[in-house]
């Protein structure tokens, strides 16, 4: 099955990012394809390369970048990102900023979309 993921909340503050990540790992382990991950609402905060959590905790933007490096399309909504101050200046690697049309495309090209939020 081809799956896309919508993440609506920021890292650390809500469990949404962690649930999405754990779900994606399980889906990949079962051989499913992830068409894309779309970050919207406060979800746009997931992708700043400036985050610097305690050494013994997970590094959420780095995890997303690593998934992006495997070829999964990682997209941040430009409108939601602009008002919140997430720009190319702070964007982590292997993630791109684009429009909501990319979410529509992900839906078109996926069997399922799963939303994680608050």
């Amino acid at each position, binding site marked *: *099955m081809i*799956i896309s993921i919508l993440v*609506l909340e920021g890292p650390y503050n809500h*469990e*949404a990012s962690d*649930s999405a990540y*754990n*779900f994606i*790992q*399980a*889906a990949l*382990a*079962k051989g*499913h394809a992830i068409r894309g991950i779309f970050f919207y609402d406060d979800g746009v905060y997931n992708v700043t390369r400036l985050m610097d959590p305690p050494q013994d905790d997970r590094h959420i933007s780095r995890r997303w970048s690593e998934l992006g490096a495997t070829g999964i399309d990682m997209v941040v909504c430009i409108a939601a990102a602009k008002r919140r101050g997430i720009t190319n200046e702070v964007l982590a690697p292997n993630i791109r900023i684009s429009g909501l049309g990319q979410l529509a495309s992900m839906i078109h090209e996926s069997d*399922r*979309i*799963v*939303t*994680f*939020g*608050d």
Partner: protein
Amino acid sequence: MLHTVNKSLFQNGALENCLRLARDGDAILLLEDGVYAAAAGTVKSSLIEQAVKRFAVYAIEADLKARGLGNLIKEVRVASYGDFVDLVEKYPVHAWL
């Protein structure tokens, strides 16, 4: 359909809202703070005790463990993230955020 619920039922109406629209044969997956609904012996346990008669109810194991929940309503099925994936394969999903 698969309904996901991620809010504490003690503080938030999401689970009740979900149960109002869910249809016989649907599956309900409790995750994050939603897993408190799976606990036996709480003032709100009857919600899921009734729900299991109409729906397949699952709760994410990692979320149960994080919250120390072991004494569960017995018809609730403990699920891994892999089981979550299988449910998504079987049903379209609505997240009751």
